């Protein structure tokens, strides 16, 4: 579809997705960065607070010790009995489990009382401890905290010396078992798996949840976080590795008066859990955003490309010629407008095509009409030519026949006159003649006279035929005259009947005439119309003659009917009828069903021309093959235009 192989929808989706993802990524990265910074700072703060809290707890532990030891340093203590002092020491031991041993040194540094949890008590040993740092430290400051020492190289102890009130008074020295700090240290919760530990300023471990580390007299000064703390560097929180090598976030706080450093360490993963949580959250949001962007991209691209695809499909169908196709327009945006324009274009093309087709159809029809006209003109021309040549032929023949016929007629008339003269002569000579002979002559003369009469009659008939032929050949040359229509019909019917009788002796037919007396006068070309009637009657007689059904009664009915503006004549015979195959050709020139030599094939053709073109009338035929045939001619009373006349 495209060079890149991706559909528009896919490319739009990708573009949208890429854009949103890029925005989300940038946004996510920035917010992640800030969240990281913030969470790291918060974690550092939290660690710092934990370190401070842990240091407070440890300092509190020591402060409580100090307070408890302080009970034995009141001003009146030097005056109380030894038993009372011992009792006070015992109470102190009870109160402060971390104190393993208590010493009372008098003002000169001699040991007056020693109470121990582990060893038998010693009273008034008098051991001189005046040079002991515990004594001197106790005398110098109200509460002196000795360095951490490890008994038998293992158990961490610290001496606390407190001077009694009053001048040159004694000192109470407490040996504190720092293993008990373990209970403080382990009770400090640092997150889920974090822990606290304590070193002195030299990095020696004082307290640690793993007591074995303490008992081993572990030096942690090599640990970077401890070294940093010892060097009093800026920043009390840093990432580091724990004693057992795990990555931790380490924070520390100092207890200045003890010279201790309290560390809290938390596995980095745990300390930075909020950071990771923020990161996860951002990632989750990012993922959600990408998914939403994908969905939105797909939906948007669909909404964008579906109309385009519809447009494309519609355009393709239009291109394939389906002009009725319309694109469903759903949107009102540019694509919708484009689709509308497409539809309008298609409509216009369709309209143009339809107009073109209509014009072509019109032209084709007109051309067909022209061709038809040309053909009919040609036919008429051909027919005219035929008729013209036939007319010439007929005229020639008629002319040639007319002369001998004139002779025949003239001489028949002459002979009749001669016969009359002969009878006169004979009458004159009648007396002279034998009566028998005279009668015989008379009889012969009568016979000749009759024959001559027949010759004259038939001569006239032949003359009439010849005249008709000449009239036909003269085509339209006759003039329109007003004639009695019924008389013309009757005369012509008689002529035809006689003609038929002459042609076929014994021919018989019942003639039925229903002539409308109101038919009256009519303007027509008598000769031509006579020919039409003769033709119709001749055809009718021929038809009834052809019918040879037993018991058949030939019958011909001629009806005239006057109408307001026309006159109708019907000629109906009960002859053979006209077969369907023939009926459509009967008005064509030279079409005939008669045997060769009996018909010219011109009769009905001429009749049609005469009625329709010369008289402006109509000729129609109805027939029932084998039963009847009826020709109907309708003639207008006043032909406005006599077609075919010149």
């Amino acid at each position: 579809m495209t060079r890149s192989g991706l559909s528009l929808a896919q490319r739009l989706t990708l573009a949208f997705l890429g854009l949103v993802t890029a925005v989300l990524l940038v946004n996510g990265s920035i917010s992640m960065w800030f969240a990281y910074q913030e969470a790291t700072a918060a974690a550092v703060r939290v660690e710092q607070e934990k370190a401070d809290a842990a240091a407070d707890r440890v300092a509190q532990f020591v402060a409580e010790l100090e307070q408890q030891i302080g009970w034995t340093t009141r001003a009146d203590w030097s005056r109380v009995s030894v038993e009372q002092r011992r009792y006070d020491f015992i109470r102190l031991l009870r109160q402060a489990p971390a104190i393993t041993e208590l010493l009372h040194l008098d003002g000169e540094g001699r040991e007056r009382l020693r109470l121990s949890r582990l060893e038998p008590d010693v009273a008034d040993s008098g051991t001189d401890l005046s040079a002991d740092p515990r004594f001197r430290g106790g005398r110098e400051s109200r509460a002196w905290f000795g360095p951490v020492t490890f008994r038998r190289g293992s158990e961490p102890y610290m001496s606390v010396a407190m001077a009694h009130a009053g001048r040159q008074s004694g000192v109470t020295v407490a040996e504190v078992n720092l293993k008990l700090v373990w209970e403080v240290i382990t009770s400090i919760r640092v997150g889920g798996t974090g822990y606290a530990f304590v070193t002195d300023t030299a990095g020696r471990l004082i307290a640690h949840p793993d007591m074995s580390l303490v008992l081993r007299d572990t030096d942690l000064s090599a640990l970077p976080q401890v070294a940093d703390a010892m060097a009093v560097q800026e920043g009390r929180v840093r990432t580091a590795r724990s004693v057992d090598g795990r990555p931790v976030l380490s924070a520390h706080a100092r207890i200045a008066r003890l010279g201790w450093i309290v560390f809290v360490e938390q596995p980095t993963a745990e300390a930075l859990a909020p950071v990771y949580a923020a990161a996860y959250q951002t990632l989750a949001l990012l993922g959600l955003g990408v998914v939403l962007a994908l969905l939105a991209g797909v939906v948007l691209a669909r909404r964008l490309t579906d109309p385009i695809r519809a447009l494309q499909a519609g355009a393709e169908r239009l291109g394939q010629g389906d002009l009725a196709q319309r694109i469903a327009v759903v949107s009102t945006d540019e694509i919708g407008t484009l689709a509308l324009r497409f539809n309008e274009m298609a409509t216009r093309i369709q309209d143009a095509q339809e107009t073109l087709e209509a014009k072509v159809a019109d032209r084709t029809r007109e051309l067909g009409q022209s061709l038809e006209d040309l053909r009919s003109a040609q036919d008429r021309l051909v027919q005219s030519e035929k008729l013209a040549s036939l007319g010439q032929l007929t005229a020639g023949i008629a002319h040639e026949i007319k002369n001998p016929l004139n002779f025949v007629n003239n001489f028949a008339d002459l002979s009749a006159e001669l016969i009359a003269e002969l009878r006169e002569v004979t009458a004159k000579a009648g007396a002279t003649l034998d009566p028998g002979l005279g009668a015989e002559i008379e009889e012969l003369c009568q016979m000749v006279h009759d024959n001559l009469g027949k010759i004259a009659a038939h001569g006239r008939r032949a003359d009439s035929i010849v005249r008709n032929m000449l009239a036909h050949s003269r085509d339209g040359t006759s003039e329109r005259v007003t004639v009695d229509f019924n008389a013309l019909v009757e005369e012509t019917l008689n002529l035809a009947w006689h003609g038929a009788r002459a042609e076929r002796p014994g021919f018989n037919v019942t003639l039925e005439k229903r002539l409308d007396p109101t038919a009256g006068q009519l303007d027509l070309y008598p000769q031509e119309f006579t020919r039409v009637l003769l033709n119709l009657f001749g055809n009718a007689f021929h038809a009834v003659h052809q019918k040879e059904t037993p018991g058949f009664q030939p019958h011909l009915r001629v009806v005239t009917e006057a109408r307001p503006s026309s006159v109708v004549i019907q000629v109906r015979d009960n002859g053979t009828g006209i077969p369907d195959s023939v009926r459509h050709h009967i008005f064509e020139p030279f079409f005939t069903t008669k045997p060769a030599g009996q018909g010219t094939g011109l009769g009905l053709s001429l009749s049609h021309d005469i009625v329709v073109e010369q008289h402006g009338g109509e000729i129609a035929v109805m027939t029932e093959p084998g039963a009847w045939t009826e020709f109907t001619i309708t003639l207008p009373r006043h032909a406005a235009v006599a077609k075919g006349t010149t």
Partner: protein
Amino acid sequence: MIARRGLLALPLLARPVAAQPGPRSLGALVLTERAAALLRAHLLPELARRGWRDGQNLTLDVRTAAALAQHRAAAALVASAPDLIIAVGAPAVRAAREATATIPIVMHGADARLLADTSMARPGGNATGVVANTPQAEGKRIEIVAELTPPGAPLAALFHRGTDALEARLAAMQAAAHHAGRVLLVQEWEGPAGVAAAVAALAAQGVRGLALGGTPESLRDARAIAAAAASARIATIGQWRSMVNEGCTASHGPDFHALYARVAHFAALILRGTPPGDLPIEAPLRVETVLDARAAAVLGIVIPVALLARADEVME
């Protein structure tokens, strides 16, 4: 917040759990049946808390033998090649250490002689453990029993026959008796049957208070000794609080269960691969003094106020 932790925990959960090659075998050497029962009662729960459960990933083989027979028992135990030996009581500790220098040993009641020439912080070798008793503690018990008895009355130290490192203990006890201005008699007994005779012998010498030596035999026979002593109007002090429950007048010593908790701690570390020599030998975190006021009253003893004040617990 929980969800965030859940997210964070995912990579942690994914960490593969180290394959356990079948149950680990734990051997124990004790001197008395009572010690064996106490070991089971106190050690196994602590081991279970640390992930080692008897019958699941741990088998415990406790061998009981008298002090003089400890060597044979130790040899037999070593022959069974346990992953770890727990020795309870100085004779057992010594026997175990002499029987093997490779199998890790957790000592319950480290040998005094071992402590003399061994760094507590870095014991090295194959043994570590807890100190249950010291000569000073023996002396402390004499001091307490001296306070419970009328001034001038003789005191006695009662040890089972065959107790080792007796000299150091007796020296500390003598010093304490001397400091209290008392005469200290030393009496031995052998086996539960010998309790009556030993107490009777002390009673005959006018002894009013006796301290039971810090040995497993004392723990075993405490009830009998306390009963016999009570009937002879002799106050008794033992090492463990349980002895007070069994009739002794007082006890002074570490918390019995706390020691076993530390033993279990060591055992768990060693079973996970920590070399025992890296683990410092520990002294008890706390030492407690318990008094039985009723038992004292029966004996006609008025407990001094100072002693009452010192006691961590007084049973009324």
